[in-house]
């Protein structure tokens, strides 16, 4: 065996750092999209490593749909101040004032207004030419073909028919004014890699990932957490306390919890290995139709 073997996780780390630095050398005004989730946490750690001993040379942008879990927001503020990161928060003011919520508007319309539109507003306002995102190719079918540098036109739209070929480690960052690139440094990581990296590096994550007694109601086969008083209960629904945790985090009325006793990473992974449902099955918006994610991506959502 060759003495110069690099473990797969170290290879992934090196590749991600390469991508982050490459984008920094090609773009003038990058931003990192920060969703507070575990993938974002990993991406932030990689950015810290890429520019060490310097500071992360770009800001983090959080799109607040105004329906996030409270624990997420608490975590976000504590994490960013501890890690000395520049955080920008944006929400869709018009939508908020109009009272757009997932109950009256349905998950599709709500997501479009409070997430997609909010994101596009923030990106246009900041005139960012590159936005780092924590999407992974193993998450969902339409993502398996996503580029590492994903080109977006002036309207932030993604055209699956017209993607730039991507070869070797040579990324094409050429754009005209107003256009942008979404850059995905952890494209090649799997869910398991992310968990192992969090464990190895001791990366802080939102406590919602760990099992705890939480107030939930059962809705369409999923456990939905009653995170605050805005949650509208349907007839016959009474919140009950259950040991649950979240595999992905989003807006609390749209994110299903799974019943679990896993309160450590090791237990989470053990559970995951036995789990026979993929990660995104707890996302309500993925079930809007067979090609729903692809449709949302075309419109500018991640």
């Amino acid at each position, binding site marked *: 065996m060759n003495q110069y073997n690099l473990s797969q996780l170290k290879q992934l780390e090196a590749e991600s750092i390469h991508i982050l630095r490459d984008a920094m050398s090609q773009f003038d005004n990058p931003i990192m999209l920060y969703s507070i989730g575990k993938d974002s946490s990993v991406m932030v750690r990689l950015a810290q490593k890429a520019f*060490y001993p310097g500071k992360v040379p770009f800001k983090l942008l959080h799109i607040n749909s105004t329906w996030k879990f409270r624990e997420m927001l608490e975590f976000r503020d504590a994490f960013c101040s501890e890690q000395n990161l520049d955080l920008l928060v944006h929400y869709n003011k018009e939508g908020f004032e109009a009272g757009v919520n997932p109950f009256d508007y349905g998950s599709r319309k709500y997501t479009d207004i409070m997430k997609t539109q909010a994101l596009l507003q923030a990106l246009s306002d900041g005139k960012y030419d590159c936005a780092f995102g924590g999407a992974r190719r193993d998450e969902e079918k339409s993502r398996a073909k996503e580029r590492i540098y994903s080109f977006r036109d002036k309207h932030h739209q993604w055209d699956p028919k017209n993607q730039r070929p991507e070869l070797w480690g040579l990324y094409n960052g050429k754009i005209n004014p107003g256009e942008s690139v979404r850059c995905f440094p952890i494209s090649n990581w799997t869910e398991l890699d992310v968990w192992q990296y969090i464990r190895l590096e001791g990366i802080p994550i939102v406590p919602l990932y760990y099992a705890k007694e939480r107030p939930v109601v059962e809705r369409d086969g999923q456990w939905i957490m009653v995170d605050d008083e805005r949650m509208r209960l349907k007839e016959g629904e009474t919140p009950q306390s259950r040991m649950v945790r979240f595999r992905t985090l989003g807006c609390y009325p749209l994110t299903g919890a799974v019943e679990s006793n896993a309160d450590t990473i090791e237990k989470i992974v053990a559970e995951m290995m036995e789990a026979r449902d993929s990660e995104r*099955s707890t996302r309500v918006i993925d079930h809007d139709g067979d090609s729903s994610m692809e449709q949302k991506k075309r419109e500018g959502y991640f």
Partner: protein
Amino acid sequence: MNIDTFLNQHENKDLLRFLTSGSVDDGKSTLIGRLLYDSKLIYEDQLAKLKEESKKSSNKDEEEIDYSLLLDGLKAEREQGITIDVAYRYFSTPNRKFIIADTPGHEQYTRNMATGASTADLAIILIDARKGVITQTKRHAFINSLLGIKHVIVAVNKMDLADYSEQVFLDIMNDFNEFSQQLDLQNKYYIPLSALKGDNVVDRSDKTDWYKGPTLLEMLETVNVTGTRNFKDFRFPVQWVNRPNLDFRGFSGTIVSGVVKQGDTVIALPSRKESRVQRIVTADGDMEEAFAPQAVTLVLEDEIDISSGEMIVHASNVPTVSNSFEGYVVWMDDKELKKSDTFLIRHAGKTTKARIDALKYHLDVNTLQKGRTMGLRLNEIGNVSITTTQPLFFDPYTKNRETGSFVLIDPITNNTAAAGMIVDALFDDYAPGDDDNEETRITDHVEKREFLWDNGLVTQSDRAKRNHHRGKAVLLTGAVGTGKRDIAKMLEKRMFDSNLQAYYLGVSNVQSGLDCDIPLGFTTKDEHVRRLGELSRIITDSGQIFITIYDGADDYDIEKLKSLSSPNELFVVIVGESLFKDFEADLHLYDQSLENAVEEIMKILSENNIIPEYCI
């Protein structure tokens, strides 16, 4: 096993990136689906969805799960029933993690295969057992070879429909092996399987007792790929100058090949300023030694100015620094590539301008024949000469994938228009002028050479008088394995016995001698032809009859050889099937006996007044 051990094991696995290539109906997606399914990576909800969708798509048997539906991501593709873009899949076993580039086999998507191959260490080429080696198989093998894939698994699929016949498998194996001799595929492995039934994919089949080799998964788990990586030539393209405060100044980048140690003497390109490596910095602490593909930050002993896009290398091992080079391009744009077109070129973390000085030929990916062309269309592959405004720091692609590869970007649309592989810098004498094409370049070269030719006191006609014949080159060509070597050797002996001055030059003599500085392979063929042509000029000048062999010559090669041999003549003999399109050989031999073949050559040489009639 407890979960701690499991996680540590997962972390320390090594990584294999591979691609799968096959034609539309070779069962490629089914194979990947089978690998994922048998290694338990398809989740229940995905499986449920899959069963539902399998029923929807009418052309499938209700009972059988259509694994391909799991893989074909985009809407349009699902409707057409073919994969049209590269998709990446992930799975792992206790020993390894795998990244699969699932690339389409459809005719018009050469670009996707090249994309998938560019980051892969290994390729699986699928062959339908009922169809054998077909045109598409050849194309896939060629593209893998051109993109520098060192390991190829030839998976003979659908063995269930060929009665699991050993003979079918062996025939395909021989066909592929023979055809691929001319390619640069170094390690080839063959395996009979049925993706649909699961034979020899993950589990050993009881229907192929005659096959003693490993299953596909075993093979993927054990093949050693790090052994074929470049740890010799240290190349460090600087991506980012890290200057957080006055006390720290480091150069961040990825070691794309080779190894670097603290204290190593290095130079920066293009300035060639020298210094030594003081520290190798990472967020996890300093290292004494770092190697490809690690991403690090180098601190040098001296304050030298280096910016993003420049390169740090060992002072004792420097890549070519040049503004012009020759390379192969895979054309990926709808707009045709023409000579004199200008582009942006991205190479080793640097972007500059590039101009196509010459479009030497295009390569037919099905037959590997070179042909003159005025333009390259989508999915065509061609050989070009390129000049850049700033110098690039490069190595031949066959030696170094990372510093030998580039992409061309259309300056108007910003599209990635081509993927390129550098063959080598252009020879000075061969450097392109403004309006030259390859033909006039060779003619110019020959004219200049002849003008400078230094003759001795013995003239050609003096030699011809004494020898009773002129100097002449006799080239035997045609497909591989047609007995050319035996004919050539016998011809030399026959001539020698008739008092003619003949000399047979074996191919391996050139390869292991004159050619030993260029790696043997498809991409260096042009340079081999050039040297052979010059040799032919020299040996025939000495009055000898120069007999040699060149496998699989096409029109382009012959024209080049003839030009380079001039003013002396080249006599061309084809043995077996002709590979020429327009060119007519001087003699075409089919299945003659050895003796008859030699006599025929002698006869026609005599008819052409090259050798005296009495020799016959």
